């Protein structure tokens, strides 16, 4: 691979990294797992003057639930850490379901959860999970920290609201209001492929009552699609054939797919409908089994 010439910096503290970004005046870029940025460098779609490699900053590889039940995922927590995490397997079903479907096993050893959300690829799997979960990003810049809901974090394909001198420090999933239930269904042509279409579902439930719902769609729009109407249609109701198919139809209506070599627009919409219904019915039937 022959990228354009760039300077390479490897800070060991967050403050140093922020100072380097600040000095870069928009021409410096963070390098996390490199699984999106390096291909862009190779194709010369990205040609930053400076790469600020954050991999040598200690203490960012964590993920844990805090006392209040919120899940924190540090900037260097890899896809693989999440896939293998027992706390996430027990406590966060939407993310647990998506983890083995993100990229391929090799990419998962390097790529980061936070980097994926920052990258803003409409086909990124984690952004859909985060939107369905009402998650937010904690950003840090020269003037301190701020929280940005993922819903408004990504502004377009490969664009986010971070200032040039801000780093995303962690991603946070708020504590569920009831019992966290969820699913992530993805249609891919082959392991490691981006989604033809995928559906993230996150429900906070009390018994068979939906207290809060989030549904977001991958690969069927210019950015990750928040199927808010579909989700809202479930709030306060139970999961039965009618509510499930209504939500599935609303989700399909929210999708804005394009025809391409992965499939036609109408097919992708159909998959969103099918997968939303399958995800919700799956949750309903496992509820029944538990009851």
């Amino acid at each position, binding site marked *: *691979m*022959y990228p*354009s*010439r760039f300077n390479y910096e490897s800070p060991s503290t967050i403050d140093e990294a922020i100072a380097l970004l600040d000095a870069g005046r928009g021409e410096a870029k963070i390098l996390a797992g490199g699984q999106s940025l390096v291909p862009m460098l190779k194709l*010369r779609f990205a040609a930053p003057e400076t790469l600020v490699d954050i991999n040598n900053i200690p203490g960012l590889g964590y993920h844990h639930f805090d006392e209040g039940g919120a899940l924190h995922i540090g900037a260097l927590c890899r896809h693989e850490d999440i896939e293998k995490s027992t706390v996430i397997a027990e406590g966060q079903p939407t993310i647990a379901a998506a983890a083995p479907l993100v990229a*391929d096993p090799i990419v998962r050893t390097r790529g980061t959860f936070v980097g994926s959300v920052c990258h803003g690829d409409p086909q990124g799997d984690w952004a859909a999970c985060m939107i369905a979960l009402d998650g937010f990003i904690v950003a840090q810049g020269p003037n301190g920290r701020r929280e940005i809901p993922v819903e408004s974090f990504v502004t377009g394909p490969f664009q986010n609201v971070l200032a040039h001198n801000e780093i995303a420090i962690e991603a946070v999933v708020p504590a569920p209001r009831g019992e966290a239930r969820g699913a992530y269904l993805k*249609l891919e*042509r*082959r*392991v*490691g*492929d*981006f989604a*033809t279409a995928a559906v993230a579902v996150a429900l906070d439930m009390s018994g068979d009552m939906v207290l809060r719902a989030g549904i977001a769609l991958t690969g069927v729009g*210019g950015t990750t699609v928040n199927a808010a109407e579909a989700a809202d249609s479930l709030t306060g109701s139970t999961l039965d054939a009618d509510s499930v198919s209504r939500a599935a139809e609303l989700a399909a209506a929210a999708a804005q797919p*394009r*025809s*391409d*070599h*992965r*499939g*036609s*627009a109408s*097919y992708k919409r*159909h*998959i969103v409908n*099918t997968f939303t219904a399958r995800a919700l019915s799956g949750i309903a039937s496992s509820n029944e089994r538990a009851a």
Partner: protein
Amino acid sequence: MTIDEIKIGGMGASRRRVEDNRFIRGRGNYVDDVVLPGMLHMEILRSPLAHARIRSIDASKAWEIPGVRLVLTGDMMATRNLAWMPTLSYDTQAVLATDKVRFQGQEVAAVIADDPYIAKDACEAIVVDYEPLPVIVNPMQAMADSAPLIRDDKENQPDNKVFDWEVGDREATERAFAEADVVSKLELHYPRSHPSPLEPCGSIADFDRSTGKLTVYMTTQAPHIIRAAVALVAELPEHMIRIISPDLGGGFGNKVPVYPGYVISILASILTERPVKWIEDKTGNLISTGFGRDVYLQGEMALRKDGRILGVRMHTISDHGAFFSDAQPSKFKIGLMHSAFACYDIPSAHLTATGMYTNKAPGGVAYRCSFRVTEAMFFQERMVQAAADDLGMDQAEFRRVNFVRDDDFPHRTAFGFLTDSGQYGKCLDVGLEAIGYEQFLKDQEEARKKGRLLGIGISTMTEPLGAGNSREYDILGIKMFDSAELRVHMTGKAILRTGAKTQGQGHETTWAQIVAHELGIPADDIVVEEGDTDTAPFGMGTYASRSTPVAGAAVAMVSRKIRAKARKIAAHLLEVSEEDVEWELGRFYVRSQPDRGVTIQDCSMAAYSNVPDGMEPGLENTAYYDPPNLTWPFACYIATVEVDPVTGVWDVLRMVAVDDCGVRINPMIVEGQIMGGLTEAYAMASMQFITFDADGNCVGSNYMDYLLPTAWETPGFELHEVVTPCPHHPIGAKGIGECATVGGPAAFVNAVMDAVKHLGVRNVDMPMLPDRVHQAVTTGSDVSGMPPVRTDAP
């Protein structure tokens, strides 16, 4: 005393591949590993547009970049008469574009610089002013009256047609159709694929002005042909050209043609008097080098009610891209397409073929097959299934009724090939038994009642391998023989060289086994070397599964020459006459006194120390082998699948493969070849195609979009064997490298079609993406896709 042949790694031994020792340790020596003193680096600027006139090229900014040594454009190539080069199919191909670009990715300029980064920067600094022209991305568009003329560089080329061609008996076939009870028709497309070796193409040209010698390290499957081509095109004396093909990271047909990059690097080295390295990137490989397939079929079969095929009519329309540079050695314009139906006893057949230019990459190659045989067998087996369905006949029974019988060899096929051996019915039976055919049909019936779609697909075929006999096959007039040179050293160790060129097939392992079989020298005592034209005997290289049928036969023959001389030496050592000497593996003995004998090693020692009077010393020889015919392995592949009617996703339940490739030299390598081939077959059936949008942009220019299956989704394969030795091959082998790629795809497609045929669907084109299957299932109609891919407004 008798040597255990398996223990010495002879015939039938699943000997570990000796080359893997260096490959798995990362110690292979590929072209890109070669570093020469003073070496410069070359990068090619490619066209972003599929069809455009070049108004101007301004390279002044590139020249200004420090470290840039040379910038070449088409005009500069033209001053050396190298802007265009001849192709293997007697057309011309642009080396660097002078007038127009004719496909996306076409070579427009080249920069030679101190390192590849500088070369790449300089390419970006070249300004090309293009005037876009209308684009043609499929042959139907190319035929339209209003179609722009792609090859306006050629005289006598009023349209976009490459050729019209026919073979077979038109009248007899017409009569068969007139008599038919049922005529079965099928139209489909075998999409464009790419051989996609993991190592892309590359070369290092090193012209030494002081000696006048040109050495080129090159990713080539056929180094001697390249030497001949360079001698003819560049007008350099042949003895001053040395082509070295080091370890190759796969070839699959992709590394047979001569590519512009090779030619440019050679000229660049002559001009700079420095070695010049060119290593293509993955995208360059996928968008500009030899592709596979891209053929449309209109097929018809004349059938009698009892299931007998009376005649076959095929019309193919092939897409050759911008230049007709098909890399094939036969005299037939559409390659061996007419090998179709060779395993069936058919009275009449007729094939017409039309080839068209389009604004796509040129260079149809035989991607893991003899040329066009993959298409031929796919069309055949899809037509066979459609015919069985149209007759309402069991698909296995339909095949059995029409197979050439075991006692009917040699058999002249309806298209004129001569097949020589096989047990087709037996292979089918082994396959049906293994898959549990009857039980599956019952399960399928039951499942269907519950709304589940199960399907079973069969593909049976015999394919011609091993191009070929010198009457019908040549490259640039050179006959398609192959060669082996064996030097047995004093201590009984040996070096074997052949004119073939391994790319992962395991020649270093297998050839030594043939020598071990013929001479009793342990395989570990034999080193095998290929790929250097200064040391290897002249040969035609490796493709079309020809190595074992042709070079492998030469290895056996040269070993026998060595044995004949060793026998004379043995007689001398044993002090008996030659007629009294008997041979058993590795040893000559006196017929009347079996315990009085000498080993082959004793003979080799004597060859250098104690030869009989009048005999030349040494134990070396060379054999050239011109095969009397092609070889005809047979295969039966059976897949079972389940289709999700809601999403169109299909999963392979089981895949059974029965291969009859004649005698197996190294069964493990044979099985590896079959599994690799089936994986590629599965890829083509399920996910893989090089397609284009309406503007001629290649969709599939990297591994995110051109999909190679991983271990994750590739189904398990259950392998079985039947052995019918080839009657004319010295060791009875038929070749196996390509059978599974050739015969495999139809098994998968037939299985999916079997699952959905009751819904009214007869065809879904490959790749059977879930979208396409879903559309077929919901509309009850065929999905025969024609590029470009559907795109709509954002």
